[in-house]
């Protein structure tokens, strides 16, 4: 079974190679009578028998008409399905336990004609895989080609961090009469990475990268929000008026201005070693929980536009800031342990 599956996948890879967007054509479209198509042909056979036995030309005509409809709708099905143009959209960040929303744009540019009818989207299930790994569940999405909003999204539950093993996307359609099933298995670039689930914790920044001796540097603790009110100070000329604590003035305590916790702009390191795991967990769970905490800290620090580095033992990322840095840190966390 698995050998056949593998051969099939190989053949599919050759026939429909991975691409960012597809205009369906004879190479990528598979077409075969549906179950109803078979029933329909059976009906034609029955009508033929009845028509012959009753020597009824009208019944025979009906039978031949239905057969012709069957033939002609092959073309119609193909033509309709070949109108489909799919382009992969941008995926948002996804963390363990989240649903990955995999967006696809169906005929987004107005150049091509819209396909009609109901179109089913789902991840191609590889049966063996589902049996072993029950957690990888996916559900399909049915859209109406004449009434839908772009993009079409497929949901995939992500139970594990790291690269998502994205299976092919199956698209199928039965338009116009349901006699044929047109389908295709499209393969989109597999570059989605599931980040560890962030676990809220205090931010622990080591002042500098730790050397092997494990000498702990000065770590600085900091409360969560930095725009929070911290203390009062006597007013100095030039300070913004809206910082003045008018209530205090009204109480006759003179001009005092509110001071807010300002950003700590010092550079620090996040390190795997110094992240405390929750107690009572197995080795593997400990690691996951540590990574989760780091993930949370990376996200928080990036939000505050802080400069920080990441030390995961083997991989170290030099201190920096910005979206790109955040991305690379999260990727490093996600792929930690699998080389």
């Amino acid at each position, binding site marked *: 079974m698995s050998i056949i599956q593998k051969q099939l996948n190989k053949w599919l890879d050759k026939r429909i190679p991975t691409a960012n967007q597809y205009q369906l054509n004879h190479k990528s479209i598979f077409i075969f009578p549906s179950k109803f198509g078979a029933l329909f042909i059976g*009906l034609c056979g029955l*009508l033929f028998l009845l028509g012959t036995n009753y*020597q009824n030309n009208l019944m025979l005509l009906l039978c031949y008409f239905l057969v*012709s409809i069957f033939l002609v709708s092959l073309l119609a099905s193909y033509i309709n399905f070949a109108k489909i143009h799919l382009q992969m959209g941008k995926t948002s960040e996804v963390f363990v336990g989240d649903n990955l929303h995999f967006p696809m744009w169906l005929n987004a540019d107005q150049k091509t004609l819209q396909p*009609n*009818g109901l179109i089913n989207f789902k991840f191609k299930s590889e049966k063996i895989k589902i049996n072993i790994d029950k957690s990888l569940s996916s559900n399909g999405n049915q859209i109406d080609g*004449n009434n839908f909003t772009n993009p079409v999204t497929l949901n995939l539950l992500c139970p594990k961090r790291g690269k998502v093993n994205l299976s092919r996307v199956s698209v199928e359609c039965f338009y116009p009469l349901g006699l044929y099933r047109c389908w295709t298995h499209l393969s989109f670039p597999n570059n989605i990475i599931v980040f560890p689930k962030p676990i809220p914790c205090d931010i622990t920044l080591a002042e500098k990268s730790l050397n092997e001796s494990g000498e702990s540097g000065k770590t600085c603790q900091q409360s969560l929000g930095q725009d929070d009110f911290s203390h009062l100070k006597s007013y100095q000329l030039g300070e913004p008026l809206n910082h003045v604590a008018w209530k205090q003035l009204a109480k006759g305590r003179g001009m005092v201005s509110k001071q807010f916790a300002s950003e700590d702009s010092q550079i620090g390191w996040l390190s795997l070693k110094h992240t405390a795991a929750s107690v009572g967990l197995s080795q593997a769970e400990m690691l996951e929980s540590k990574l989760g905490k780091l993930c949370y800290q990376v996200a928080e620090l990036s939000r505050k536009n802080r400069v920080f580095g990441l030390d995961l033992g083997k991989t170290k990322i030099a201190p920096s800031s910005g979206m790109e840095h955040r991305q690379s840190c999260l990727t490093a966390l996600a792929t930690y342990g699998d080389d």
Partner: protein
Amino acid sequence: MIKALRPTEQLTTKHSVKSITLLILAIELVLVSLSLYESVFTWVMLIIGCSGVIRVIIYSQYYKHLPTIRTLNLLAVLSILGLIYSSFNESLLLIMVNLLVLACALKLMQARSQRDVYQLVSSLFFVIGCGFIFNQSIGFYIFYTLMSLILLISLACFQAPSLPIQRQCKTVLKLSLQALPISILLFLVLPHLPPLWQVPTSKSFETGLADNITPGDIAQLSQSSDLAFRATFQGPVPNPKDRYWRAIVMEDFDGKTWRTAPLRKKIQEQLKRQNKEFSPAVTGSYTEYDIMVEPTHQNWLFALDIATPNNSKSANEIWQSSNYQLISNQTLLSKYEYSVRSYPQALAHQRFTQIDQRLNLDVPESGNKKTQSWVAFQRKLKPSDDEFIQAVLRYFTQQPFVYTLRPKLMLSDPIDTFLFENQAGFCSHYASAFAYMLRLGNVPARVVTGYQGGELVKENNQAPYLSIYQYDAHAWVEAWTEQRGWQRFDPTALVAPDRIEFGLQQAMQDEGSFLADSPFSLARMSNVAWLNNFRLFLADLDYDWSRFVLGFDDTKQKDLFKLILGKVTPDRLSLLGLGIISLVALLLCLFFLPHWLKNRMDTTQRLYFKALDVFESAGTIRPNWQAPLSFSEDIQQQYPATISNPFTQITQLYLRIQYQDTNKHKHSVLNTKRTHKLMRNHLQKLKKEIIKNNKSPL
């Protein structure tokens, strides 16, 4: 029939239970069942009506819940019991049809899943197919075709729920038009096989003549203006008084009812087993004609006296019986055409066997005493058979007999009552009385039923044909004498000569009983000129329909092949087969063509792109994001005015069509067509200039 639904079978939210597909299917089911009202039991009709109403209510969201599975199961069980009860004496075919529509109705009541819809559609197609067994006229054909199209539309609606219904109709119509030529080709070319096995049929569908007459029966036929059969003549058409279409010979009389003699039946069966077919001695002149019989669900065929099959196909399919009847080997379930040759003078020259003698002199001992004594008295006076016959006939002319379609009931001693009291009746009364009297007088005689007359239709370029309607049904008498052999006598002709010369309508003019039960029948209004023309046009249409569509069989197919191939040989046939297959393939390709063409651009775009191509070949490539006007400005800078001017013109025209308000210059002189023409002109100029430019600079 009904199972509990598994959750996976539930329709998705997009086809909710109020889907239009199911509504269409409900309407379809009701309409198709109505067209079969004669064969569907009334209570089944009621259930169908209920299911239709349920669907309408659900669609209009007046009520949102389908009947529960339990209710439906109960209903199903009850229906099955009802069906078993009502179909005790019915034919298998009828039961099948009823079962089918009943199943559809029950399914419709609970249809939710995709599978339900598909099953419903298939069953409905099958019901439509069955409809053709019962109704084969053009009208019904059109109706059923329409129903099939609606079924296809319902399927399309199911696949694309949010497409407006007009577009669905368009899609289905397009598909059907594409399928039409292919289906006609298949119909013409695929072999028309003989029946593979005997199919069930039923008594209740039998139409036309019955195999027994109790005087009174034929009057009922006279109330029907349905077509019985048509006869197309190669040569001259016989005179109205000679148009006696023989169908059934009845030789057994019990005092009330004439029927075919059981002995004859037995002998016939025996002969059939031994495959000893009777063939009459034929002499004299003959006429040749083809007959197309409407389905009667019986085996009798019709022909003028004395007929033999005219070609090998008819000879194979028709059994000739020893009393000169033609009997089809197949029950006539659909229109049937055969060709025969009739020898009008041959009747007198047939052999007269012992069996004939015995059967045709048999009279019941009891009853009709008056007649018996009257005949005995006459017979004494006229010892010669001929004279006796004349005397009996004279009785009909001398006594005040009346031809009427509304005779009084004659329950006991019907012949006595008819001859001496009422003296009013129609053909079967006269025939039965006359034959009985002859038998009493020891002259072998029998009653023959069939049709008499027919409406002649003569088109300029067609062979003339006679349409014989059910009201032409008639009964007459054959008697055998030593000197003349079998002879036909029609006492009705003596009483009502109009009936024979001009048909029933003329004969019944005074009484007003012609088709009295169907006041709006077109045949009844044949004195209104245009209505009569219309009726004849319909008849003509029906004639062609029967001949060319319903009567298309393997002989006609062979003729067609001969017409195409010249000679039917296996080689040529296989060539034809190949040709047909490639023709179908070609048609399919043709239907695919619009798909390819659609990918082409419209004229404006094409012309503009041609102009762009000209520059591209000259070395100026438009950056693919540059808009037309700015590109035209670039061209103006790069090229001399002779080149850039036509291009500027083209660009202006292009902008005009693509971007200006089309409504504004719809009525202006420069419409789209002219603009295209101008664009073409400028394009030509541009090409010329570019070529000149390419040559000159060096």
